[in-house]
């Protein structure tokens, strides 16, 4: 029931169709921004290889490599959802969707986009309380959550903020999609 041909690699893994038209300007911006995170994944790979190399050739492992790759990949994971939303590439079940007439499908598109927006919006609200604890002390002064390791970077705090921001963007994107589906713009 899911649209399996878009699973994992896309219909043709080499095709890059970009953001769908209904996603509007925000969708195009999100699509363009994907490049930053794609480069991030490549950098994460480079950091890991470098780490293996340093450890075995120079016997000098770093303290930052693992946490940094987790952070970079975490950002890519979170952004990936937004990226797929702008491109309408999330896995979905098109069993009924594919068999209904275009008019019904358009109505479904609108309702689904609104429902997605609702889910993302609720989640953004849920993420807010997490972000509050990651950025402020209970008394209201600023304190960014750290990982607590020997190196102790602020990555967890930043990652939580990123999740919150992406959720808001996701909600907006789905609202724009709903609006454009309703307008019937192609």
């Amino acid at each position, binding site marked *: *029931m899911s649209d399996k041909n878009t699973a994992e690699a*896309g219909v043709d*893994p080499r095709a890059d169709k970009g953001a769908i038209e209904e996603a509007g300007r925000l969708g195009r911006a999100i699509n363009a921004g994907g490049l930053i995170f794609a480069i991030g*994944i490549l950098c994460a790979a480079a950091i890991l290889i470098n780490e293996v190399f340093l450890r075995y050739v120079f016997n000098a492992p770093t303290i930052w490599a693992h946490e940094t790759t*987790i952070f970079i990949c975490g950002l890519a994971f979170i*952004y*990936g959802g937004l990226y797929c939303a702008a491109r309408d*590439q999330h896995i979905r*079940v098109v*069993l009924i969707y594919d068999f209904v007439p275009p008019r019904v499908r358009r109505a479904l598109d609108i309702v689904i986009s609104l429902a997605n927006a609702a889910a993302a919006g609720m989640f953004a609200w849920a993420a807010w309380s997490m972000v509050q604890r990651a950025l402020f002390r209970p008394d209201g002064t600023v304190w960014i959550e750290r990982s607590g390791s020997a190196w102790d970077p602020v990555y967890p705090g930043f990652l939580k903020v990123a999740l919150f921001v992406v959720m808001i963007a996701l909600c907006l994107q789905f609202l724009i999609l709903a609006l454009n589906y309703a307008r019937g713009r192609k």
Partner: protein
Amino acid sequence: MELFGSFKALGIEYGTLVMFVMLFVLLLTGMPLAFVTLMVALIFALGWFGPMAVPLITSNIFSFVSSFVFVSVPMFVLMAAILDRSGIARDLFDAMRLVGGRLRGGVAIQTIAVAVILAAMSGIIGGEVVLLGLVALPQMLRLGYDKHLAIGVVCAGGALGTMVPPSIVLIIYGLTANVSIGDLFTASFLPGLMLAAFYVAYVLVRAYLNPSLAPIPEPNETTTAEKLRLLKGLFLPLCVVAGVLGSIYGGIASVTEASAVGVAGVILSTIVRRDFSFGMLKGAGLQSLRTVGMIVWIGIGASALVGVFNLMGGINFVSSLITGISDNPTIVLLFMMLILFVLGMFLDWVGIALLTMPIFVPVIIQLGYDPVWFGVLFAMNMQVSFLSPPFGPAAFYLKSVAPPDISLGTIFRSLLPFICLQILGVMMLIAFPGITGR
């Protein structure tokens, strides 16, 4: 009426029922799986417990996106994406001609051998089915192979990517079930080869019983120089396989680091072969972003849902339902396999793993089974889900690159014998758990 907490009045039995119906109905509308699960999770968190339960879900999700082992997923995806874009697979296929030789069904066996090597390099399917569909399928059709046999070999062979280590299915299982991924990879090695051997045996039996299914190509002598040139195509991929699996089994690097070693290996291979370009790297990076975006968000939704369901006491409820069906552990196990099989027809493996494993694995341990062995069994079961209609992803991948006169119906019909072989594989694992070496 107070909405928050009002669902509790339903009781766990009806609560579970309402949750399933809600999931099912929302999924059928065509709403993306990731957002269906997220939404149902939030509705139940609020309806069952009220707003104070919500932070629990978000922290669940946060720990999901920030684990080191999970970093290996984009790495393996990246590796496959680069592989897709290079000529490595095509050369590998040409080199493996030396394996198939002049056997009846030789090209089909050659295809399965290539599939196993590709599977040992990367851990995802899509790309592999597409590659084999582009390289091996036209070759077999041109030689006059039976259409059904050729299609089946390509899809089933391509799906091996998640059975032979390294495999993303096993990584996700390891994460949810909390077992060592290295152990999973070690245990899945023989079962993966066993399944490939089943395919080879099937091809040989069919081809020798009915020679018209797989004509032997007209003899054309390959010179020694030609053979050496072909062997070069085998060299680089085998180095990559040795690098990835060697660093995992040899204990040199963690699974995540080994996946990065694999990326380095594939990039080096493309440089040696002179088909490296930054455009290719960019395309591969973007494709990885898309793929992990899909996988991770299904994971986010599923882990939120399972988190809420667990809090409701649903997991205890469902596991007691499952264990309650019989006193015989084997029957409980077979029942779980049946559930996985049915879910596999409709859902994709990420969703299945993250939704069912938190329920199944504790039951399995309670029944006295080994969770590592069960992980291999799960991966074998997911092999079936890749091929089984109506939504076997392997079939859709192949359809996207197959000649237009090959319909989805034809593809699914061709897959039937291979599905039977996979079910045989599942049965073998249950009957002889020793195959996993556990």
